[in-house]
């Protein structure tokens, strides 16, 4: 299969991304470049200067809503991906409507309690629907510890499942970017098996 065949296949699907920070913005970038049909992205945050060390935004976008800036930046890639961005804080109630039509859901939050809320909601609402989590990517180096684990029934986690961010272990572009790309890569692999 050449790239045109692959992107034509991916063009038929919708992927949901919960969060537009380090994981979500970079994962969306990789999926848009690959030709995903539609991205449904939700985040309530605005861009802070401290985000620029890893998130797919630019200095002149500080203060903008992440969803708005991400849609602009993805549009500049010139792919055919349709981007539906919701400036909203996700909760169990709105997850059920916002991500209803997504064949795959990618968890891309930074806070552990939000990761847990999303997983609990999606696993309860749609057991068996592919859910790709991110957990453990703080600091730098140790690329070999970043991996994909299959927990069964279409639940996956990307990351080292160990390092939590702290003052001495900040989130940085390389490791967050690797995990975001792992999530996108796995989503593509799963979609290529779908009819």
């Amino acid at each position, binding site marked *: 299969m050449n790239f045109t065949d692959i992107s034509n296949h991916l063009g038929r699907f919708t992927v949901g991304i919960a969060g537009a920070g*380090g994981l979500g913005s970079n994962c969306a970038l990789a999926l848009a470049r690959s030709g995903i049909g539609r991205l449904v992205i939700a985040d309530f945050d605005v861009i802070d200067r401290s985000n620029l060390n890893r998130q797919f935004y630019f200095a002149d976008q500080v203060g903008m809503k992440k969803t708005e800036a991400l849609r602009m930046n993805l549009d500049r890639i010139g792919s055919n991906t349709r981007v539906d961005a919701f400036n909203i804080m996700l909760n169990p109630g709105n997850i059920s409507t916002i991500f209803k039509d997504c064949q795959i859901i990618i968890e891309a939050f930074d806070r*552990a309690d939000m990761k847990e809320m999303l997983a609990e909601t999606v*696993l309860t609402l749609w*057991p068996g629907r592919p859910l790709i989590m991110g957990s453990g*990517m703080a600091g730098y180096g140790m690329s070999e510890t970043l991996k994909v684990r299959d927990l069964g*029934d279409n639940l996956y986690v990307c990351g080292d499942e160990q390092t*939590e961010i702290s003052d001495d272990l900040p989130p940085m572009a390389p490791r967050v970017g690797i995990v975001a790309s792992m999530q996108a890569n796995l989503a593509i692999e799963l979609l290529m098996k779908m009819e």
Partner: protein
Amino acid sequence: MVITLNNRQEEFDGDSITVQEMLDAKRFTFRMRIVKVNGRFIRKEEYITQVIKDGDEVQMLYLMSGG
């Protein structure tokens, strides 16, 4: 009894334990987590009632802040 915990064999006393007893026995105190028993997602309020038996498969995922 022997169960599979994150793809590894683990031995516990007795014929069955609850999810909460397993967490206590393993001293798993980290709060943010997802637990599945034989593929089924177990909600936190079920930890004290969901029973794990010999041969069961348990998957546990810790959720770390960062992203």
